[in-house]
């Protein structure tokens, strides 16, 4: 049974089996009103002032839930938002059963169509001007219902083509570093799906992503002040 007050709820969530622990949150598995669910709980940070910590967790939880819901309404295959409790730092969402795309590729079970579907999901997000922030093959799940994009912890509203292009760049970089021999094939199919979902916007984003790659952003171009101290 799910208790009704917030403290009881958090206690109950923390009693659920832990699936993974990230830098800022715990992922636990359980059921929510009869639905198999993932519970993402942002953990207080002891090194921060409690007021700062609380306001950050609240704002981030709210933003993540909002963007997840918006992505869903854009028709992107993302987990359905089931509940959000900003002051507790808790998001409850649908559990997508399946295999992480990274492992799926490594084990050789992949089909090229799946990369196309992965591109399509990101494309749908981008056509609604949402950037994901961390679109690596670890954040895609291949399930019976298709390929899902998860973890909106670093997602944000995009305000420029550059914001969106960074996603493409991140995906490319992740694929090249994790699945080097298949990188070309994966990227070709991924971009095919991405462009089908985005149209002319997508072309501009992909062009900009190529510029980012060529100018070696994240290596050369970032500004530093000249002080050596």
């Amino acid at each position, binding site marked *: 049974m799910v208790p009704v007050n917030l403290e009881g709820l958090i206690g109950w969530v923390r009693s659920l089996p832990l699936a993974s622990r990230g*830098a800022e949150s715990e992922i636990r598995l359980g059921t929510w009103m009869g639905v198999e669910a993932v519970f993402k709980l942002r953990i207080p940070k002891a090194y*921060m002032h409690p007021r700062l910590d609380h306001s950050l967790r609240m704002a981030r939880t709210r933003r993540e839930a909002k963007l997840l819901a918006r992505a869903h309404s854009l028709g992107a295959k993302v987990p359905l938002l089931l509940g959000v409790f900003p002051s507790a730092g808790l998001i409850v969402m649908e559990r997508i059963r399946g295999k992480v795309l990274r492992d799926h590729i490594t084990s050789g079970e992949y089909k090229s169509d799946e990369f196309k579907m992965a591109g399509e999901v990101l494309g749908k997000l981008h056509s609604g001007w949402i950037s994901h922030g961390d679109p690596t093959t670890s954040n895609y799940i291949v399930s019976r219902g298709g390929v899902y994009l998860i973890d909106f912890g670093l997602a944000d509203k995009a305000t420029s083509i550059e914001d969106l292009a960074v996603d493409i760049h991140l995906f490319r970089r992740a694929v090249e570093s994790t699945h080097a021999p298949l990188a070309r094939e994966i990227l070709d199919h991924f971009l095919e799906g991405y462009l089908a979902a985005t149209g002319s916007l997508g072309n501009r984003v992909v062009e900009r992503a190529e510029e980012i790659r060529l100018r070696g952003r994240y290596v050369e171009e970032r500004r530093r002040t000249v002080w050596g101290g």
Partner: protein
Amino acid sequence: MASAATQSSSHRENGSADLIVLGIESTAHTFGVGIVSSRDPYILADARRQYKPKSGGILPREVAAFFSNVAGEVLAEALSQAGLTLKDVDGIAIALGPGMGPALRIGATVARALASRYRKPLVPVNHAVAHIEVARFVTGLRDPVAIYVAGGNTSILSYSEGRYRVFGETLDIALGNLLDTFAREVGIAPPYVSGGKHAVDKCAEDGRYIDGLPYVVKGQDVSYSGLLTAALRMAKGGARLGDICYTLREIAFSSIVEVGERCMAHTRRDSVVLTGGVAANKVLAMKVASMAESRRARHGVVPPRLAGDNGVMIALTGALALAHGITVRVEEAIIRQRWRVDRVDVPWYPSTLRDLSGG
């Protein structure tokens, strides 16, 4: 530019494993000369002079003038501390960057002159790499995530595939620069540091946390310029200075520690070191300790004397490089104001100075 010449030291040819390197630091406000040995007690000399402006900030030209005045006496002091002459040294290590051009040129000129005159191999050292190497040496944490915070640098670094990689960094101004600029603009500095405490820390002593200042972490990066602007606006608007100092520091420190935490989770490291001039800050050190504890990770803080810019860290990095045949020809030893840490091979990793003595 680092040609891999094979200039082994005379000591080693004589059958001794002892390697002695003199290092010169002149990237910012400190002219430092350090001498290290590959044998206990490792650090043989640590001499330095720091340029302190009477008013305003640090002007590169004035620093350079100050350096050229003190270079000779700092060098002499280091040699006398070690009880050595330049003939006893196996190599001259020089921080060629990153840093302020006019300041770098003084150190580089001295190093080139010494290398030519005494026919010693010249070893190019990247200043940021040196901050990590001294941290690995003094803390004994061999494979850490490094939180490198100083007047002009703020980045989270960890080793991967032959080099230190920048996991995250400031998108605009550095942490030390943020604190210094705020202190100067509101009239509580210079002096920026007195009695081992920064002006902002002193001012924060009677402060409380207040709402309204922006906390900006974008993925793996921090941004401080918006925080500085907002804090200055708040000060102008008449808010209590103690509260602003407290909150500014709280937000600035928390955000860089948070990026450090993200790096540890991402790279699956179980240790973290705090290095660079701002590492001397007790409040920041406590936050790093608390973050490490919550992850059941180890942590180390470089003691203030070696955390700020110094010649010792240049010498000890130079010793590691020299032992791996990394030298540069005198005519090619040009300064590099924007020499990024991730352009430098560190073939000795995860060895430290302590491991050389076995050879």
